[in-house]
């Protein structure tokens, strides 16, 4: 069985929303329907939050995402307001203050809310929540989820759902015309939903979502550890392909953190590394042979023959590198005797199924007694669907081997640094002895010297490079053939692009990221503290917004020709005119000027206009459109956060629902609606 993907849940949710459209009366009455709509808006906010780079100050305001990050921040605010209006409507209609509760089965709206919440939860299975709201990736997909294509696709989808939900809120408002308070709230909710959809329009026009963006989003799988399914003799081609895919996924998962464990884990042994290198050679050989066979049938099966031949050649090169690596282990060993490790178990299952897929023996094992010739390609892939499935299985296996090679390279380097690699004294030409308690004890093994491990590490680097080349050749072949693994190919291409945006390669220290905790709280965090917000997640997000603003200002300062073009303030200027040179007086004057500036800024905040970061840039004379947009985005993120915090504070004070909704206009600039969008009316809950 293949893993559930985001696309699976999404299409189910879309169908349920479609069924609910025009039938809000079938949702258990207006109060319950309002409750379900509120659940949906909450799920949509969480979608935007999942892909938002709120946990990464460096990603906030990234130049290639200006439009969509801004749209997401504004839509999030509009959805929160819609949610609050829906909550108020539900209460006015006699619904519970704590939301709709567990909906009875069969309501399309409730089912859609549940499905959309599940879709969002699927995204979060790739992320690990750390202390104080920090987020780290659990899988390779984590970086894909916050990548530009997925942010575009998710934000665009949320906009389309908002457009779809707005008429439902209007219908409900019409149904409860007898309850004016509730009708007003529902109408406001409809307007906020339309407004949310409208916020996406500038981004949709400036940076359109592509089909590849959506394909990538739909392909995001559930990150769940599937249970091991041992190979059984006589499995069908489809079962073998699914088994290979599952083993490849588990293999990639268990190799994470290998380098950290290599210094101490008894499972990290030379025997296990040598065995894995051997498995890599055999798996690459079997894969290469199958692809070469498929390439011979490319015409009749409608497969990309050249891509398949290229992938087969790349796999043959990888096979040679792995074999060379296994030999390079020679007599090098670790102090711990060979133990079967989890990566070995997964690699073993993968290898056995690859052998049974490639060879004419349904009970193939690496033993000489079980060897068999390669299967006739026409028997292996009698139709294009089976050929694509085989290609996808080989693709998954190659990607897993790429990961294993890189992980083992890191792990062996770590083991060497930890002085865990040994060579037998018998072969190094001398016997080293140590004296202990007047006895002389000959050593059987000594720590391998750098010269003795150079060849091994070079072989690992070669295997890692060859495996990576093979996996990339398979990315191209899978994409060209439309194989089931083409989503993974897209994800890998996205990951490579995202990695190329990193300030430095992994392991090489790049420019230090801004430390959000340095120098006390910034302006956004300060405002949250003044609001008596104690939520660690909100405070951390505020600190990150502050850090992003600080980084932006630093960028602007370095870009500005003369950051001090403004010169001294009026008080300091007057002192200079008077010929005052006393540094203490001048400094006090500068402080008075700064206080006046701050006061003006607060006054401007209240009056509307640009946000604090954008205003600061304007003051610096920055005219760069990109920098100004980034500033506006950081301001919007701060504003969104403040709105959320304010709602949480007010809800807590009122004992209201746990899901925050805006209750008052936050300090700072109101997000300007696009010209084409209808201006929302004064929502009662705003």
């Amino acid at each position, binding site marked *: 069985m293949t893993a559930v993907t985001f696309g699976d849940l999404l299409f189910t949710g879309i169908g349920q929303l479609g069924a609910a459209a025009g039938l809000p009366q079938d949702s258990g009455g207006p109060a319950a329907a309002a409750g379900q709509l509120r659940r949906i808006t909450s799920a949509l906010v969480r979608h935007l939050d999942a892909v938002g780079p709120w946990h990464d100050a460096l990603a906030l305001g990234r130049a290639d995402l200006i439009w969509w990050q801004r749209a997401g921040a504004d839509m999030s605010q509009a959805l929160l307001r819609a949610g609050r209006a829906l909550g108020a409507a539900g209460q006015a209609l006699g619904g519970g203050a704590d939301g709709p509760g567990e909906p009875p089965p069969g309501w399309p709206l409730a089912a859609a809310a549940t499905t959309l919440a599940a879709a969002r939860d699927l995204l979060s299975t790739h992320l690990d929540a750390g202390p104080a709201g920090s987020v780290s990736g659990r899988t390779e997909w984590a970086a894909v989820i916050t990548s530009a294509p997925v942010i575009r696709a998710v934000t665009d989808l949320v906009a389309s759902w908002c457009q779809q939900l707005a008429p439902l809120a209007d219908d409900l408002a019409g149904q409860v015309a007898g309850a004016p308070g509730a009708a007003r709230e529902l109408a406001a909710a409809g307007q906020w939903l339309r407004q949310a959809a409208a916020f996406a329009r500038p981004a949709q026009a400036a940076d359109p979502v592509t089909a590849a963006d959506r394909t990538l989003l739909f392909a995001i799988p559930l990150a769940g550890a599937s249970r091991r399914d041992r190979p059984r003799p006589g499995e069908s081609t489809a079962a073998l392909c699914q088994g290979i895919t599952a083993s490849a996924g588990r293999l990639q998962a268990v190799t994470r953190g290998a380098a950290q464990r290599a210094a101490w884990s008894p499972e990290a042994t030379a*025997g296990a590394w040598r065995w894995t290198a051997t498995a890599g050679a*055999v798996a690459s050989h079997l894969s290469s042979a199958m692809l070469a066979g498929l390439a011979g049938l490319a015409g009749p099966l409608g497969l990309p023959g050249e891509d398949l031949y290229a992938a087969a050649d790349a796999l043959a090169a990888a*096979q040679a590198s792995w074999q060379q690596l296994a030999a390079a282990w020679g007599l090098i060993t670790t102090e711990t*005797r060979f133990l079967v490790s989890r990566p070995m178990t997964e690699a073993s299952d993968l290898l056995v199924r690859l052998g049974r897929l490639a060879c004419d023996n349904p009970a193939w094992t690496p033993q*000489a007694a079980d*060897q068999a010739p390669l299967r006739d390609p026409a028997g292996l892939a009698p139709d294009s669907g089976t050929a694509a499935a085989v290609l996808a299985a080989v693709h998954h296996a190659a990607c897993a081997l790429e990961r294993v090679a890189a992980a083992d390279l890191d792990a062996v380097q770590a083991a060497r640094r930890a002085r865990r690699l040994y060579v*037998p004294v*018998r*072969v190094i030409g001398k016997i080293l002895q140590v004296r202990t308690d007047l006895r002389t004890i000959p050593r059987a*093994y000594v720590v391998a010297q750098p010269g003795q491990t150079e060849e091994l590490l070079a072989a690992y680097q070669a295997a890692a490079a060859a495996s990576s080349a093979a996996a990339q050749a398979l990315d191209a072949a899978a994409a060209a053939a439309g194989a089931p693994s083409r989503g993974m190919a897209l994800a890998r291409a996205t990951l490579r692009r995202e990695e190329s945006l990193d300030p430095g390669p992994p392991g090489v220290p790049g420019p230090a990221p801004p430390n959000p905790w340095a120098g006390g709280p910034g302006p956004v965090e300060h405002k949250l503290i003044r609001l008596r917000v104690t939520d660690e997640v909100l405070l951390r997000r505020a600190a990150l917004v502050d850090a992003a603003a600080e980084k932006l200002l630093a960028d602007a300062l370095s870009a500005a020709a003369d950051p001090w073009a403004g010169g001294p303030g009026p008080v300091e200027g007057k002192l200079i005119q008077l010929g005052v040179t006393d540094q203490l007086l001048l400094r006090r004057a500068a402080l008075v000027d700064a206080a006046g500036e701050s006061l003006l800024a607060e006054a401007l905040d209240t009056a509307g206009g640009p946000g604090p970061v954008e205003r600061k840039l304007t003051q610096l004379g920055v005219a760069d459109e990109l920098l100004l947009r980034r500033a506006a985005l950081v301001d919007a993120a701060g504003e969104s956060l403040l709105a959320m915090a304010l709602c949480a504070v007010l809800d807590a004070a009122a004992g209201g629902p746990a899901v925050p909704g805006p209750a008052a206009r936050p300090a700072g600039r109101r997000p300007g609606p696009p010209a084409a969008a209808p201006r929302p009316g004064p929502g009662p809950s705003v």
Partner: protein
Amino acid sequence: MSRLQEADAAAARLAAATALPDLLDAAWQALDLVRTTAGECADPRSGLYAALLFAAAAAAEAQHAAGLAPSMPAGDAAIPARAGTGAGAGAAAGQLAGLAAAVARRLASAAAQAELPGDRDALTAAAAGAGQACQLLAEGRP
């Protein structure tokens, strides 16, 4: 001396060893021959590619296990310079399977009589590794 002749010589040396240090040394040398020859004979065009590569890995583990026996002689191992294998994968696999089987038998038998626990553990582990190499290389089912 060809690899196959070397295998015959290694088997003869193994058979002639009576004292435990001599047996360990002979087994270590025989396993070294299995490891290197299996690795070099592994040709992806041959059906025995997987068997030979995994047998080389198993022999390496057996060799390390034997090397940890307290009774292993402390002197340098006399590993001869080896020419190319000069044999097909099938012939090499058969010869190496026989040699690995002989190592496994002798080491298992010695383990039963070893006095030092360290020797017993090392001999048992080395015998298991040699047996695994033999199982991988044997064409027929045992």
